[in-house]
């Protein structure tokens, strides 16, 4: 570990803290449906969209209609993506003449991008035409992100409103979030990326004759436009197979820093928006503090382990940190931080191959996802996931002192706690169930590249990543098979929508409740005691379930690694 490495990590966090309020305030305006400075420019587009879609943005919906419309919207786009992938050979903008995508892979990819997972069973440059990259994939990067933020808004309204039946209009939310937040940020970021060397062209590839006279074909494409929203929307689906490790996606250390900031930017801002929405920004800061404590601990472990390196390689005469699967321009610190960021958020972009991390260095990303990606989290999904844990935390606190629990002025009752537990229990059930199946059936065992405990880690990582809607991988796993494409597709769908529906039901039930002013006996949900309780609940409820599986995978792998045992 070096001073420069720690400086990078701390400066990264400091910049985010500075951006939390301005970002949160901007999104609060969208949450309220207020005018922004961009309205003179984009207002006509917004009203045009409403008119053509037959939407009255002022007609708010109850939680059921909000949920149904959200699912219809996502199903429609899922279908569009599937159709484009299945027919890309006959469509324009296919300069390298790539064939249609196979049915199981097209299904997996369509689900993957709809659920904001962006798990990639395919290699981008070898599979997707430019049209598929732009229309089938980039569009989802926007819409799945906008959907996540809209859902967070709906839950905020549940907490903020009193005796109300309605929690917002889904169409107004997604349209405003896309037009006034995601699109302008993406344009700015994409221009910055192009200036730094990220290609933006329709050409498929260029042929070079290298200095030594060999032929090298280099894949190109409209990379910058996809890259920008891939990070801002915590999507993570790379244009190229190597994702943000590819120099055309992430050309230098500065773009690397901006990519990491982009991944956290919106999620961090949303904690402030939440505080503001419930009338006390300190509620938002408390959540952010708990998130950042968990984040800093995880990041320190990855950095420490990667900088310490692999004893097996040390024995072969390679000293120092673990550089297998990492790029020189980012170094150990820039790769370790990226790995922690991308799995803490539900991004899944990678700038180094997590499969080649040291055993414990690779376990932290796994744990980040298993906690439900609530350590900062994906856009929208992070904060609503964390609020589910907050509901459990006040419930536990209530049990301890024998008082009925309240949170930000709402009584938390049996219905909310049951729904929160339902949403939280989906994760371990599907991750562990599907991993267990794949670890015993031949179709599953055919997947891993690595042998021994690391092979098990590859399977566990895949389902964790899928259910948590992350999308990063221990990429040695051969996932483009009907078994993994199918099972992961189902896992991603469950992981997204089986959390969302109970969460929206909570929003509806909270909105209907009366406001309970905080009294002398109320448990304060802003101070250090609360932050400590939150961290504890996330670790115990979210994490403990996975301990046995971690012992079989990364922990066994670590013990083998320090003894120099190979597989």
């Amino acid at each position, binding site marked *: 570990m070096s001073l420069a490495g720690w400086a990078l990590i701390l400066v990264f966090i400091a910049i985010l803290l500075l951006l939390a309020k301005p970002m949160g305030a901007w999104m609060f305006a969208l949450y309220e449906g207020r005018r922004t400075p961009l309205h003179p420019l984009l207002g006509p587009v917004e009203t045009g969209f409403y008119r053509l879609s037959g939407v009255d943005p002022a007609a708010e919906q109850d939680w059921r209609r909000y949920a149904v419309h959200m699912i219809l919207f996502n199903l429609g786009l899922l279908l569009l993506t599937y159709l484009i992938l299945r027919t890309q050979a006959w469509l324009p903008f296919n300069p390298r003449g790539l064939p249609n995508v196979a049915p199981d892979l097209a299904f997996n990819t369509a689900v993957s991008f709809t659920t904001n997972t962006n798990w990639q069973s395919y290699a981008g440059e070898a599979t997707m035409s430019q049209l598929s990259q732009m229309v089938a994939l980039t569009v989802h990067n926007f819409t799945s992100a906008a959907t996540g933020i809209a859902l967070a808004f709906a839950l905020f309204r549940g907490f903020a409103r009193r005796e109300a039946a309605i929690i917002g209009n889904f169409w107004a939310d997604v349209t405003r979030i896309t037009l006034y937040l995601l699109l302008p940020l993406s344009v700015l970021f994409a221009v910055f990326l192009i200036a730094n060397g990220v290609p933006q062209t329709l050409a498929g590839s260029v042929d070079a004759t290298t200095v030594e006279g060999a032929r090298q074909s280099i894949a190109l494409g409209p990379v910058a436009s996809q890259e920008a929203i891939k990070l801002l929307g915590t999507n993570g689906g790379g244009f190229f197979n190597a994702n943000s490790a590819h120099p055309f996606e992430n*050309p230098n250390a500065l773009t690397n820093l901006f990519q990491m900031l982009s991944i956290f930017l919106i999620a961090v801002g949303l904690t402030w928006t939440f505080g503001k929405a419930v009338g006390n920004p300190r509620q938002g800061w408390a959540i952010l503090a708990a998130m950042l404590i968990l984040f800093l601990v995880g990041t320190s472990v990855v950095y420490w382990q990667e900088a310490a390196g692999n004893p097996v390689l040390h024995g072969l005469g390679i000293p120092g940190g673990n550089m297998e699967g990492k790029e020189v321009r980012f170094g150990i610190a820039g790769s370790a931080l990226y790995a922690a960021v991308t799995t803490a958020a539900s991004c899944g972009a990678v700038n180094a191959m997590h499969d080649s991390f040291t055993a414990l260095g690779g376990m932290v990303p796994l744990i980040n996802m298993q906690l439900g990606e609530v350590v900062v989290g994906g856009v929208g999904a992070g904060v609503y996931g964390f609020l589910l844990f907050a509901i459990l935390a006040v419930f536990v606190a209530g049990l301890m002192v024998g008082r009925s629990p309240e949170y930000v002025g709402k009584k938390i009752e049996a219905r909310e706690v049951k729904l929160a537990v339902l949403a939280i229990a989906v994760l371990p059930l599907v991750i562990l169930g599907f991993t267990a199946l794949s670890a015993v059936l031949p179709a599953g065992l055919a997947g891993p590249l690595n042998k021994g405990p690391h092979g098990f880690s590859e399977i566990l990582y895949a389902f964790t990543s899928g259910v948590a809607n992350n999308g990063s991988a221990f990429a040695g796993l051969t996932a483009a098979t009907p078994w993994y494409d199918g099972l992961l597709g189902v896992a991603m769908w469950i992981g997204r929508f089986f959390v969302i529906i109970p969460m929206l039901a909570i929003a509806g039930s909270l909105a209907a409740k009366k406001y309970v002013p905080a009294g002398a006996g109320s448990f304060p949900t802003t101070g250090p005691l609360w932050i400590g309780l939150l961290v504890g609940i996330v670790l115990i409820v979210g994490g403990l379930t996975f301990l046995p599986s971690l012992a079989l995978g990364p922990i066994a792998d670590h013990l083998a690694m320090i003894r120099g045992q190979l597989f």
Partner: protein
Amino acid sequence: MKQDILTGLRPALMTGLLFALLLGLAYPFALLGVGQAIFPHQANGSLVVERGRIVGSELIGQAFAADRYFHGRPSAAGKGYDGLASSGSNLGPTSRVLADRVKADVAALGTGQVPADLATASGSGLDPDISPAAADWQVDRIAKARGIEPAAVRRIIASETRGPVLGFIGDARVNVLALNRRLDGQRSD
């Protein structure tokens, strides 16, 4: 429920379609215009052109095997530095395949402590850089093959070394293609 579905069909179809047009076509094409107009070099892949011939990209590593050139890192992209098949090795820390590969590379590189990046595969398989230490490691071989002073090779490394941004963002690095073009006299300071 039925009413919820019926009222959602038209907006789902139309908003989906409008978003596809705006975000899938208008947005990337607008950036295409900006990129090609203001940053044509970068937007087209930062290509290195020599006497009208494309030699490669500044940002994409390429394979070097001759003693007279600096070598990049081991690559898992296709058969090595395949610009159409970026990939890491994805070998885990306890992989025998990884240990055997590193053992063979270290044996080929010579005795002593090999700089880590020189015997490990990058994440992309297209890493254009090596660390200054890894460049320094190769000085004697290159000087001998070219019949020049090692000091001259070291001067080139020094002038091509790029430090971390602001002293702490990223690691020090040298671009292998840039180094080799300097060696061939194709590029001056």
